[in-house]
């Protein structure tokens, strides 16, 4: 029961909702960049929302299934193929042992999530299966996947088995994720603890600028290009909390958005905090792409998060129902 990595991709890691409770020791969160993508992939195969998934970047790995697997892909579209047959996104698929999955071309998005029914058989480190690359711990051996790795899978608790014959069987439903990734909408943020350190011109250019994600961007953070922001107050800041989504202002006037592999503390002014509901959408943008920022209230942030969580919960119920109905007819 395993996934065999035949060829590694740019950065393939095991991630879940992240590691919490050890921030006082400087242990950072890690976790899936796009939590919605992770959740959707999990729901489709009947897993819990935060079951560990494989997060892939492009070029993505080549994977051979050493056992039949109920699998789903979500997030970025890397044009997946199973033995040269196209694998749809956001759809549960049953694949036979021996099938190889390849990703041909990056069509949309930056990170693709692969969930396997039953999940990966991994030991949690400090309560989470997320890979912490800086500590070299958690996930799969604390590192990105390499050719030759054999990722063991747990027994698929649903007992879903592929029919004989066909290499791939798409189950007859898929989910619509367009609500989560509205095109051309601004990424919303709440003003951060040092927002008022910006002069008024810079406060307004923060919202007016088309911010471009530079090539110096990864799971730790996105450096942005667009406008030079000025501080009205220049004070040396002693280190204090930062979190994924924190917008820091670097001494050269350039903002950086911290992402999920960021440190627990930092010393640059925190001018904003991206709202959690919009982090998945930001995670699917990549180097060269641009977005705008919009300041919102905390109430808006919580309302957006609540709405997103409710849509996800309905999706989970719907997926579970369809899977159980299919099983009933199968028996």
């Amino acid at each position: 029961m395993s996934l065999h990595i035949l060829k590694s991709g740019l950065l393939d890691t095991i991630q879940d909702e992240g590691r919490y409770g050890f921030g006082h020791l400087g242990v950072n969160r890690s976790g899936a960049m796009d939590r919605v993508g992770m959740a959707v992939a999990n729901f489709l195969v009947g897993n819990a929302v935060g079951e560990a998934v494989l997060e892939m970047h492009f070029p993505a790995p080549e994977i051979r299934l050493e056992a039949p697997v109920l699998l789903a892909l979500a997030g970025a579209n890397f044009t997946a193929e199973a033995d040269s047959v196209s694998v749809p996104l956001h759809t549960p698929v049953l694949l036979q042992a021996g099938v190889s999955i390849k990703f041909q071309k990056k069509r949309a998005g930056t990170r693709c999530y692969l969930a396997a029914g039953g999940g990966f058989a991994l030991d949690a480190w400090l309560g989470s299966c997320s890979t912490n690359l800086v500590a070299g711990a958690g996930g799969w051996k604390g590192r990105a996947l390499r050719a030759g790795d054999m990722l063991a899978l747990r027994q698929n608790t649903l007992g879903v088995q592929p029919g004989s014959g066909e290499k791939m069987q798409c189950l007859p439903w898929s989910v619509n994720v367009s609500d989560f990734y509205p095109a051309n909408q601004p990424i919303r943020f709440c003003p951060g603890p040092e927002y008022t350190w910006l002069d008024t011109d810079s406060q307004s250019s923060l919202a007016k600028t088309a911010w471009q994600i530079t090539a110096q961007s990864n799971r730790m953070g996105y450096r942005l290009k667009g406008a030079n922001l000025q501080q009205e107050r220049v004070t040396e800041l002693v280190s204090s909390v930062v979190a994924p989504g924190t917008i820091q202002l670097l001494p050269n006037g350039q903002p950086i958005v911290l992402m999920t592999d960021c440190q627990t503390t930092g010393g640059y002014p925190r001018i904003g905090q991206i709202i959690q509901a919009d982090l998945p959408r930001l995670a699917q943008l990549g180097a060269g792409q641009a977005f705008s920022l919009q300041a919102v209230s905390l109430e808006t942030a919580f309302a957006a998060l609540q709405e997103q969580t409710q849509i996800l919960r309905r999706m989970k119920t719907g997926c579970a129902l369809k899977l159980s109905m299919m099983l009933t007819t199968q028996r």
Partner: protein
Amino acid sequence: MTYQIQPLGDQGLCISWGNTIDMRVNSLVLALNDHLLQLQLPGMLDLIPAYSSLSILFDARRMLREFPQQQPYDYMCKRVALEIQKITEVNYSEGRLVEIPVCYDQSMAPDLERIARQNKLDPAEIIRLHSSRTYRVYMLGFLPGFPYMGAVDDRLATPRLASPRQLVPAGSVGIAGSQTGIYPLDAPGGWNLIGRTPLRLFDPNRAEPALLRPGDQIRFTPISLAAFQKNIPAP
């Protein structure tokens, strides 16, 4: 002591007692940290104690589901304000005294001679000054298990390197401003390196991966290169 609570968007809140490196303030931070750690407020995910601030990261998704009538940030603010009142004893004495052996040999201290030159001191005097104080671990951050300690003798205080090194070996002991710190893992970094410890400050396989905790008292003991090499832990 007066404090201010500010939101970290919809993820948490930051309680700060000014922007300062001060033992009394930090004691209050750590006392409240311990108190809240014991209490485990519903929805609390992580506590991040720093020099003069304590931050709470919370699970807004769960709080919105379990207490739909409460705005999570307001709820946490109210709870925290109640708990802060209970912290009256700020003589934080939980810290352990930990001895850290350090090899100050030239081969492991690429910035020692420069600091000596800049301050018109003998390198041996730098070593003596660095290893003759007891330091406080104010906080851990930057890397898993990285202790921010202070304060060094004024004659040792040196600003960070203008351009950080690509790779600082694990165990390196450095100085940045009036702070001293130890790199727990191989990482890029801009601190001035004056020595190296054979101890592992962070080991994911230990039950307690981080060797140090905020509030600990640290003493550096100079060791020879031979002693360092004998004490290097197996990888």
